[in-house]
């Protein structure tokens, strides 16, 4: 559910964050914004929503005067030259839940923006107050960076201010200094459907291929979540995909893969080519052998994951049980 401007303002009040709000006609640029709030003391911010080639997203929030060089930033993040682009408008709506012209650090209040990295200009610290849009560009709010930090901490973010104009050398012995800002965790999300569709085209049942994709997607979200919210240990108790904890689902997964391979064109074509004369038993043997050969590595991998998952659960159960047994005398 996307946060609205009013919900955000209410939340700020709840957190006892002191801010001043100024309504004005919708503004798409800092220059336009300056016309309305430029004379009130405080630093105006420009907010960029960027993405890298691995579909990770970044909000770069800087003072209007700070020079932001995308090439330099890209290198400092360890993305190579030209690794950063402006993110397309659809992603702004999808991930930040704000329209064009309203990018703001406050958008991180949305769950969907959980994996978006935030880079704040250290120049903000030198200002008494700074202006940001409260999720809508028909209003600007000004607040002190300490209060901004308070808000960010309340949504589980660690506020970090960076010298955005710095241009340190990046090379073999000087690792990218902003590499820690790059969102971690599997970010395979947007493109995961591709590998799954490869399975689908192999002829496997549609429903089950989707489950496979979904299971993998679920898992893809959870590790990312773990890395961001380092606080609550209990929040880290992630449930592994049920294909690997439930024997029935595991067997179904295996049978799905086998049927997919069996029905796949290639298997039959290879078999047909040499064996038009063969029939019945011989053909059956031939197919069985080929199936074995091509399924073995994949299935072994799945079985090992199943085993590892079971062991992990047992291991933690063992640890917990020995702890609860302590009070006995």
């Amino acid at each position, binding site marked *: 559910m996307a946060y609205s401007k009013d919900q955000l303002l209410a939340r700020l009040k709840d957190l006892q964050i002191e801010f001043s709000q100024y309504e004005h006609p919708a503004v798409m640029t800092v220059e336009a914004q300056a016309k309305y709030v430029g004379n009130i003391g405080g630093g105006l911010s420009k907010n960029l929503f960027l993405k890298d080639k691995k579909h990770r997203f970044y909000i770069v929030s800087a003072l209007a005067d700070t020079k932001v060089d995308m090439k330099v930033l890209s290198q400092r993040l360890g993305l190579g030259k030209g690794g950063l682009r402006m993110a397309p408008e659809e992603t702004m709506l999808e991930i930040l839940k704000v329209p064009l012209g309203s990018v703001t650090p406050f958008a991180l209040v949305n769950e969907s923006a959980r994996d978006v990295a935030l880079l704040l200009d250290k120049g903000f610290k030198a200002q008494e107050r700074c202006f940001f849009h409260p999720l809508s560009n028909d209003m600007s709010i000004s607040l002190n960076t300490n209060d901004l930090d308070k808000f960010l901490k309340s949504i589980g973010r660690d506020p970090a201010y960076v010298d955005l104009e710095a241009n340190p050398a990046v090379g073999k012995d000087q690792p990218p200094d902003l590499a820690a800002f790059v969102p971690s965790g599997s970010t395979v999300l947007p493109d995961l459907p591709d*590998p799954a569709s490869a399975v689908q085209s192999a002829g496997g049942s549609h429903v089950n291929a989707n489950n496979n994709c979904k299971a*993998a997607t679920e*898992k893809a979200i959870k590790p990312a979540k773990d890395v961001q919210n380092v606080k609550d240990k209990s929040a880290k108790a992630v449930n592994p995909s049920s294909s690997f904890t439930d024997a029935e689902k595991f067997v179904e997964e295996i049978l799905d893969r086998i049927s997919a391979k069996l029905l796949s064109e290639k298997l039959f074509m290879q078999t047909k080519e040499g064996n038009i004369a063969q029939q019945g038993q011989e053909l059956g043997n031939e197919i069985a052998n080929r199936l074995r050969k091509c399924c073995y*590595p994949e299935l072994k991998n799945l079985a090992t994951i199943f085993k590892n998952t079971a062991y992990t659960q047992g291991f933690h159960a063992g640890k917990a049980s020995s702890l609860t047994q302590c009070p006995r005398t």
Partner: protein
Amino acid sequence: MDKNEEKQREEEREQVVSPWEVSSSGKIDYDKLIDKFGCQRLDQSLVDRVQRLTGRPPHVFLRRGVFFAHRDLNDILDAYEKGEKFYLYTGRGPSSEALHLGHLVPFMFTNRYLQDAFKVPLVIQLTDDEKCMWKNLSVEESQRLARENAKDIIACGFDVTKTFIFSDFDYVGGAFYKNMVKVAKCVTYNKVVGIFGFTGEDHIGKVSFPPVQAVPSFPSSFPHLFSGKDHLRCLIPCAIDQDPYFRMTRDVAPRIGYHKPALIESSFFPALQGETGKMSASDPNSAIYVTDSAKAIKNKINKYAFSGGQESVELHRKLGANLEVDIPVKYLSFFLEDDAELEHIKKEYGAGGMLTGEVKQRLAKVLTELVERHQVARAAVTDEMVDAFMAVRPLPNMFD
């Protein structure tokens, strides 16, 4: 005198291989490397012997000469024949989060082949301290990277009942540290400078690091796993640039009463842009990453994989492709399991019958399958699983 000196310096300038730098003005000359380091070629007779002993077909990497050099592999096999087991030791320096296919090579070999074929346990060292020192990362960052890398390593399919993963920051101490001191006492400052090229400007952390990478070769470093088995042998699968560490270790081992570890060494994984290109973490197009989507893989191969094909179709049909420099074929030789198919592709492509596009397409399919399998496995690795792999616990079934 002068002429010889000049020639030697010229040769040395041409090719640099050390744990921290791999570069060459042309292709890496592996024969020269073997001579320089003093290890042995892994020839066909040895591969055949391994096949006889294990009763399975040798791994793709052995068949294609990816793992091409060794030290004392014969001794390990002799002992194995007599019923004496050994354990495996390999490692990773977690300097970046993004793992590419080249990084996976030693792990794929260790897991899908060595561990399975010989039924032996494995210890995996994550040298977070090394990266903290060499790459100037913070302690927390290097520890975090170590855990993230551990997930990708686990996703290669390691069995938790036979594998112990540890990070230096977590594990150094106790018996491990005692061995480190024993090793350190046997290596003079001058020696370590000679082997690793340290200078007066290098900080003391670097100078005292080599024992950390040496002692996992000794079973007494892992009392929770191998207590009472002080004479268990160790086999180390690694890339050949790690040889200096283990030359030092092998030198020291007999002096402190331990077996010398044996090594099985691999060549380097070429960058997409070709042998002379360097695979670097800052250039995402120099390699295929395990997080790449099918689309990205296809794109990278089509756009960046250095082709040995001719400039035009007509020329190509006439002259065929230059297999020596062609990257798609090289990558296929790493990852295409079917020997017959690879031979066919090499023949046809080399003669000009097959076009670069077709080869690239085949490669894209092979790599996508591999990466997809990895991603599914990776998605199933939880923090709890990492904890389990890294817990200091006995492995009662490790030789089963």
